[in-house]
């Protein structure tokens, strides 16, 4: 009992640590990445005791210190309680969502099988959507509590956008559920280890390519990043819902956004790119379709899997950064039109086609 609780706690802490750190690193990557894209030098001034060489580490330390030492401003006619609550509401869903994303297969230690996933619940994907639907509150409440018209506009934009894209997101995942026949993420990832025609990994991207595009678009919209950053839209509505936030609370919004980004990247990797799967790597080692095996110890396999998952997440995070620094921003009505008139019908069509194909393949069983 105690050991199991300890294992769960360890896994939860590990995931939380990874997500938060990755979010922090993303803050640095975003700055350095944008600088790389735009022929600039980027953040280079964070020095500890005059030593600025370790840009990443220094920025990781300097950033929170800078934020936390700033004045925590609450608008005088705003709502104090809700103003404080909103950043927590924004950060909370982003962090708890990662609980159901598996980051590896089972690890066998001393005869005990440890499922490398914080919580394996049988409604996994629905849990993710439930938590994603709660992340609206951070925006709406923050916007309302600020008592600022720009905030309110941002809040209304954000709420409308996130609710709209949740629907498209949910429907695009439906295809995955139908193909793999389960809601459990660990099950989905395991099913992606099979091979199609003996050589192609059965990853979501090959079975549901349209859904991948729809899901990625919706995921970017859910993370409120360019081209969907209307709730913030700094040139239009100052900073949208977090106009009146500063200091630590702003840091929480900021971290929340990056954590959401990491979570979205994790979801894309899990649902469409095989999660922790490495092609042809089974529990005992590589089994190549062209014959030949390369057996590996169990620990190496697990490490490979976790490494593969991390690599995939990092890759998609980087993709988000690339996207952010390439595209312009949509307008409010264009976002709505895209969501309701393009993504939603396409997602429905995808579900239909998937259903027809599945029934046809099963041959009217």
């Amino acid at each position: 009992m105690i050991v199991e609780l300890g294992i769960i706690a360890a896994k939860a802490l590990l995931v939380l640590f990874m997500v938060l750190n990755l979010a922090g690193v993303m803050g640095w990557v975003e700055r350095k990445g944008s600088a790389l894209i735009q022929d600039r030098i980027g953040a280079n001034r964070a020095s500890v005791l005059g030593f600025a060489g370790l840009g990443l580490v220094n920025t990781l330390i300097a950033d929170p210190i800078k934020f936390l030492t700033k004045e925590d401003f609450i608008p005088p006619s705003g709502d104090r309680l809700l103003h404080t609550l909103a950043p927590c509401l924004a950060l909370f869903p982003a962090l708890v969502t990662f609980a159901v994303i598996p980051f590896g297969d089972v690890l066998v230690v001393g005869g005990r099988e440890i499922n490398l996933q914080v919580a394996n619940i049988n409604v996994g994907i629905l849990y993710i959507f439930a938590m994603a639907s709660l992340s609206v509150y951070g925006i709406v409440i923050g916007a309302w509590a600020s008592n600022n018209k720009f905030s309110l506009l941002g809040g209304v934009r954000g709420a409308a956008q996130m609710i709209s894209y949740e629907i498209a997101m949910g429907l695009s995942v439906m295809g995955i559920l139908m193909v793999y026949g389960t809601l459990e993420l660990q099950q989905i990832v395991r099913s992606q280890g099979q091979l199609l025609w003996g050589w192609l990994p059965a990853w979501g991207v090959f079975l549901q390519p349209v859904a991948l595009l729809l899901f990625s678009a919706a995921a970017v919209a859910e993370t409120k990043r360019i081209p969907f950053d209307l709730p913030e839209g700094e040139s239009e509505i100052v900073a949208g819902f977090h106009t009146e936030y500063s200091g630590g609370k702003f840091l929480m919004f900021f971290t929340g956004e990056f954590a959401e980004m990491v979570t979205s990247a994790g979801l894309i990797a899990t649902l469409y790119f095989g999660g922790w799967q490495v092609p042809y790597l089974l529990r005992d080692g590589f089994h190549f379709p062209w014959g030949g095996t390369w057996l590996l110890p169990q620990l190496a396999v697990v490490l490979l899997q976790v490494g593969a998952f991390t690599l995939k997440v990092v890759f998609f995070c980087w993709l988000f950064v690339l996207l952010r620094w390439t595209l312009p921003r949509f307008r409010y009505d264009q976002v709505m039109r895209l969501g309701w008139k393009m993504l939603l019908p396409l997602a429905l069509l995808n579900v239909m086609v998937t259903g027809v194909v599945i029934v046809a393949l099963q041959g009217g069983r």
Partner: protein
Amino acid sequence: MTAPVLLFFVLAALSVVFSLAVVFQRNPVHSAMALVVTLFLVAILFLTLDAPMVGILQILVYAGAIMVLFLFVIMLLNPEALERRRALWWGLGSIAGLLLVFEFADFLSDIPRQAAQGAAVGEGFGGPEQLAQSLFHDFVLPFEVASVLLLVAIVGAVVLAKREG
């Protein structure tokens, strides 16, 4: 007292506190937030009753969608206005509520005590598969009717809230 009972009492106490906040907070936004928390707590209660699917749906539909709608409307209308209290109504209403609670208590004390988790249920009770089995086998007609109801609600809402041009 075992762990489940303790958990129940904590959840129950919290949900009562927050539902009282729903009713007695003067600021509608605070009420709405309290209701969100209540719904969340009730969803957890559903989980303790082996209804994970319904619990998640509760968060997804109620907390995630319906309450956002409420907040939206509150913000669009008058966020400032606080209503006047009327002592008489408050007194009468509270008394009525208390009477209702006592009535329940009285009624409940008559039925024989049994454990909520009494019946033996199989693996996956309340999971998506079982719910789907029930919905799409035994309750297909109501399910379709519900979808029609939602459609009617959408049309109705659009017609009602549309501005007369």
